[in-house]
C-alpha cells in the first residue's frame, strides 16, 4: 500500500471543512457493513481541534483549473498522484472496518475534464455500495459544471452531495478563478442538485464558502446563504477562513481571522435553528459582522423594547431571542413550566442555561437578578462576550 499517496491526497482535501457524518438515509438494503447515525460520530481530533470523522481524500490532485487560493491549482509545482477506484475503495473499507472513520468524503481535481474525474469518483462509490455492500456514510463532492446525469447517479449512491460556491457572487469569484463561470458552472448545477435531491429522500446537499480571500463582506455571504436556504433546498452552508497557500497568486493575502468564520457560523445557526431572518443581522459600515460581540447579543442590545422577558410566561420564540438560551434550553423551560413555576436562577442554571449570559435579559417570577440599566442606554452599556473555553477544565 502506498501510504505516501494517501498522505498527499488526504492533505489536498483537508481544506474542505464539512466533516459531518450525520444522516438518516439508507442507501442500500441489507448492508454487509456500515450504517449511518443521525448524530454523526467523531473518530479523532487533530491538533487544530477539528474533528476527523471521514476519510477525506481526493481521487487525484491533478487539476486543470487555476483557482488562485487552491493548493492543487494547475500552475503549482507539487507532487501529483491519483487513486484508482479499486484501490481507494479497498483502502476505505479496511479503515472503516477498523473503526478509524465513519464514512468517505470524496472529491477530486479536474483531470481530463469534468466527466472523466466524476466517473472515477462514481465508480469508487459504486464498488463500495454494490460490491462491498457498504451501508455507511458517503459524501461526494461535485465538480464545477457537472451535468444532471452525474448528479442523479451521485444522489442515488451518496448520502450527501456538495458543490462549493467558494464566493458569494460572480464579481468575487473572478478574484478567485478565471476559469469558472459563477452562473453556468456553479449556481446552475446547484439548482440542478436541489432538484435531484428532492427526488432522492435521504440525500442532502451543502456548499462551502472561502472567507476573506476575495475581499467579500459578511453581508454578501449571508445574502447568498439566505437565498440558498430559501430557494435551493440547501441543508447547510460551511465557511472556511482563508489561509494563504505558498506559490499561489493569493499567497500574500492575510489569512482571515478564525473569529470571522465563527461569527458566520453563529449567524448561520441563528437562521437555521432560531428563526432569525436576514434583516435581524447587524453589519458595520464595511458590511461585516461585529467581531467583538456575537450576532445574537447585538440583536438583543439593538432591540431593548423586547426585553426583559419573563421566563414563566414567554413564548418559545421569545425565549429563543434571549442571549444564552438556545432551542434545547427553551424547550426545557417550557416543559418545566407545565407543572412547576420557575422561582430561582439556580433552577435555570441546573437546567444547563448560562445565567451569566441571560440574566440581563430575563425576569424570574417578576424579579430581575441582574442590572437592567442597559435597557435605558443600551449603546453605552458594556457587554462581556463569553468565551467557549472559559469553563473547560483540562
Amino acid at each position, binding site marked *: *500500500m502506498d501510504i505516501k499517496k494517501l498522505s498527499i491526497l488526504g492533505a489536498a482535501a483537508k481544506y474542505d471543512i464539512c466533516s459531518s457524518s450525520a444522516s438518516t438515509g439508507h442507501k442500500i438494503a441489507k448492508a454487509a457493513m456500515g450504517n449511518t447515525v443521525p448524530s454523526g460520530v467523531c473518530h479523532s481530533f487533530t491538533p487544530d481541534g*477539528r474533528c476527523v470523522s471521514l476519510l477525506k481524500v481526493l481521487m487525484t490532485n491533478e487539476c486543470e483549473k487555476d483557482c488562485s487560493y487552491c493548493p492543487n491549482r494547475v500552475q503549482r509545482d507539487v507532487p501529483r498522484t491519483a487513486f484508482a477506484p479499486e484501490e481507494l475503495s479497498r483502502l476505505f473499507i479496511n479503515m472503516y472496518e477498523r473503526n478509524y472513520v465513519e464514512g468517505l468524503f470524496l472529491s477530486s481535481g479536474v483531470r481530463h475534464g469534468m466527466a472523466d474525474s466524476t466517473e472515477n469518483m462514481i465508480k469508487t462509490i459504486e464498488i463500495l455500495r454494490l460490491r462491498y455492500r457498504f451501508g455507511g456514510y458517503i459524501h461526494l463532492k461535485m465538480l464545477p459544471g457537472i451535468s444532471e446525469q452525474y448528479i442523479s447517479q451521485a444522489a442515488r449512491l451518496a448520502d450527501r452531495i456538495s458543490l462549493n460556491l467558494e464566493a458569494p457572487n460572480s464579481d468575487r469569484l473572478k478574484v478567485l478563478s478565471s476559469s469558472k463561470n459563477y452562473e453556468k458552472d456553479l449556481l446552475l448545477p446547484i439548482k440542478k442538485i436541489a432538484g435531484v435531491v428532492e427526488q432522492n429522500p435521504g440525500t442532502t446537499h451543502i456548499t462551502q464558502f472561502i472567507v476573506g480571500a476575495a475581499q467579500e463582506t459578511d453581508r454578501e455571504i449571508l445574502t447568498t446563504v439566505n437565498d440558498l436556504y430559501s430557494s435551493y433546498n440547501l441543508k447547510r452552508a460551511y465557511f472556511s477562513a482563508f489561509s494563504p497557500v505558498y506559490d499561489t497568486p493569493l499567497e500574500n493575502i492575510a489569512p482571515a481571522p478564525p473569529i470571522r468564520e465563527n461569527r458566520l457560523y453563529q449567524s448561520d445557526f441563528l437562521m437555521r435553528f432560531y428563526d432569525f431572518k436576514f434583516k435581524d443581522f447587524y453589519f458595520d459600515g464595511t458590511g461585516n459582522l461585529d467581531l467583538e460581540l456575537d450576532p445574537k447579543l447585538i440583536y438583543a442590545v439593538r432591540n431593548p423594547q423586547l426585553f426583559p422577558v419573563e421566563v414563566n410566561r414567554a413564548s418559545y420564540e421569545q425565549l429563543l431571542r434571549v442571549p444564552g438560551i438556545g432551542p434545547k434550553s427553551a424547550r426545557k423551560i417550557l416543559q418545566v413550566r407545565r407543572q412547576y413555576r420557575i422561582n430561582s436562577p439556580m433552577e435555570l442554571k441546573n437546567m444547563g442555561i448560562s445565567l451569566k449570559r441571560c440574566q440581563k435579559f430575563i425576569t424570574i417570577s417578576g424579579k430581575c437578578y441582574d442590572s437592567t440599566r442597559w435597557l435605558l442606554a443600551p449603546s453605552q452599556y458594556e457587554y462581556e462576550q463569553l468565551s467557549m473555553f472559559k469553563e473547560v477544565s*483540562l
Partner: protein
Amino acid sequence: MIIFSDHPQSIIKAFMLSKLTGDTVITEGSGSLLLFSGNAVINTDSYDLEELAQQYKEQFHTNVDWLHTYKGNELMLAVYKALKHCSESKYSIILKAVEDAFTKGINYCLQGASIHSKKLHSLCSDVNHEVYRMMGFIRFKPAGEKCLVAKPLLYHDTADLILREFQGRYPNHRVVIIAGSQSRAIENDNIFDVSSDDYEKYLKEDIYDSVWEEYYKSQYIEPRKNMRLAAAKIPKKYWDWMPEGKTLKSEE
C-alpha cells in the same frame, strides 16, 4: 430497612416503599447497618410496581400516572444509565432525583431543574459521553473471519451499551470488547461473555496503524493549531491509549 437491586424499577419501588412504610432505603456505605439492625429487611423485588404506585397515589393524593407513559420510561432510562456510572454516590443521587419526580413533577426532574436531578443528568451524561466517545475512539483489529476485537479504555460499566451501538455498524460480525479479565461480545443481537485470552493475541499492530497515523497527520492545518480545543475534545486521559496521542503530545 429496604434493599433494592441494580434495576431502575427496583429503585423507584424502593423510594415509594420508603414513603409508604417510613423505612430507610439502604444505599452504598450503609449496607453494614443490616448486620446490626433488628429490623426486617424489605426487598423491593418482591413488590409489584403498579400496586405500589396505586398505594402511593391513594396515600399521598399525588398523580403518578406518568410512570406508565413515555416520561416514566425516560426516567427509567436515565436511572438505568446512571446505574452504569462508577461513582459510589450514584444510589443516593438517583433516589433524591426520583423523589423530585414524585414531589415536584416528572418534568421538573427530567429537565434537571433541581440540584439532585441535575446530578442524575450529570451521571447519565458521563455514561452517554463515554459510549459516544468510544463509538469513535475504539480501533478494532480483525480476529479471523467476520470477527473484530478491541480493548477500550472504560471508566464506567458501558461495555454492553457500546456493543449495542456497534451492532448496526457490523451486522454480520462478532464484535468483542476486552474489558479487564472479563470480555463481552455481541453477535446476532446477543451479548455474551467470552474469554479475554482467546482474543488478546489479535491486538497486535498491523499496516493500518501506520496508514491511520499518516492520514491523521495529513489532516492537520498547522496555522490553525488550537491545542486547548484539541485537549477538550480528546481529554489527556486518553492520549496514552490512542495512537494519535503521540502526535498530540508532540504538538503540546
